[in-house]
């Protein structure tokens, strides 16, 4: 009786350990931007359309899912990019004039996500975020596509929605961090800041 109970407890402990390891490894890896800020006054253009970006994948034959990437991006981009520019303002339309030197325009190119048969298997989601940076004359000075991914459990009937939200959050957060890192290390933007 005591032995059975011990085995049961040991099994539970093992499961908990596995889950915790899974969650730790599922967290996306991010790179921090360099310490020196770009001496540029930047405007981040997050239009209502961008914030409402939803990408639906799948078909009736597989599983149909909607990835609400815009909503998360509109929360995550500003704090990530604030660490890169000496000044960053958040606007909802491209400014025609004003006290900014560069205009940062994000666009979601696409997302891709694997699906798994098992609720406890990790799935992977990639997000492709394209940046166009223009100067105040309207000239494009930098363009880059950031591709980042995150892993989470597929989830079952009850947890799928929550897991979907988590994987979107992690991949978009990671894309925001990676965007900051790429902008910060860009020779073209560094040149402009001198």
């Amino acid at each position, binding site marked *: 009786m005591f032995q059975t109970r011990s085995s049961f407890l040991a*099994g539970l402990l093992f499961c908990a350990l596995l889950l915790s390891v899974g969650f730790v490894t599922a967290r996306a890896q991010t790179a921090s931007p360099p310490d020196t800020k770009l001496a540029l006054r930047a405007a981040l253009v997050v239009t209502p359309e961008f914030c409402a970006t939803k990408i639906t994948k799948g078909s009736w034959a597989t599983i149909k899912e909607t990835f609400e990437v815009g909503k998360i991006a509109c929360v995550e981009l500003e704090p990530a990019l604030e660490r890169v520019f000496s000044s960053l303002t958040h606007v909802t339309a491209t400014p025609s004039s004003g006290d900014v030197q560069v205009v940062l325009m994000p666009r979601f190119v696409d997302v891709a996500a694997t699906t798994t048969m098992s609720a406890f298997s990790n799935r992977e989601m990639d997000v492709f975020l394209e940046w166009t940076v223009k100067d105040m004359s309207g000239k494009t000075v930098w363009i880059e596509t950031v591709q980042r991914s995150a892993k989470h459990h597929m989830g079952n009937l009850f947890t799928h929605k929550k897991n979907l939200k988590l994987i979107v959050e992690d991949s978009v957060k990671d894309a925001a961090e990676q965007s900051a890192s790429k902008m910060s290390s860009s020779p073209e933007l560094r040149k402009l800041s001198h």
Partner: protein
Amino acid sequence: MLRSDLVRILRTLVALSLVPPVYAASTFPDYPVSPASDYSVSTQTAGLTIGLVAVEDLKEQKTYFHTEVAPKGFVPVFVVIQNGSKGDSFLFDKTKVTYGPADSSVSTPKEGSKAGESLAVAAVPLVGLFFALKLISNASEVQQNFLQKEMQSTTLSPGASAHGFLYIPVPKNAPRQKIHLRVPITRASADETFVLDLVF
């Protein structure tokens, strides 16, 4: 008795969770990258070199994409762009790339021609993979691999290079005509656009 059965079930579940599923073992190899000038179809202008190869062999398509792409009406074209200049940065915008039939009866495409010069070619923009993926495969891993391998818009700093696939629509189950690919590249400092023309 009931509890020991539960323990056995739990152990089996734990053991099963440790076994990676069959599909997880499937990997998509990267397509080998060579210097841009090494490709049989290549051109150079302003220190920028672009080379490409159309991956038309069905076995190769199976290897790199786990599906045959040509019968679904696409040809994967592997593109390498290298910036060999010492001081100029160039912008590659995927959305500006166009393709069309290379008609010998019209003016011959000029290498590194200026964007303003007209070329008699039906220029169709590449719309990306968003709609094409469903036609190619329903498997999410296959679709993800297509996206991961696709060439994306980027800035080519001095000495930098970029590579990836462009997926060009072709007629299904019929020999394809020669394709004229137009790749506009903008010099970042001068806002000057060149078009790199490639026929394959």
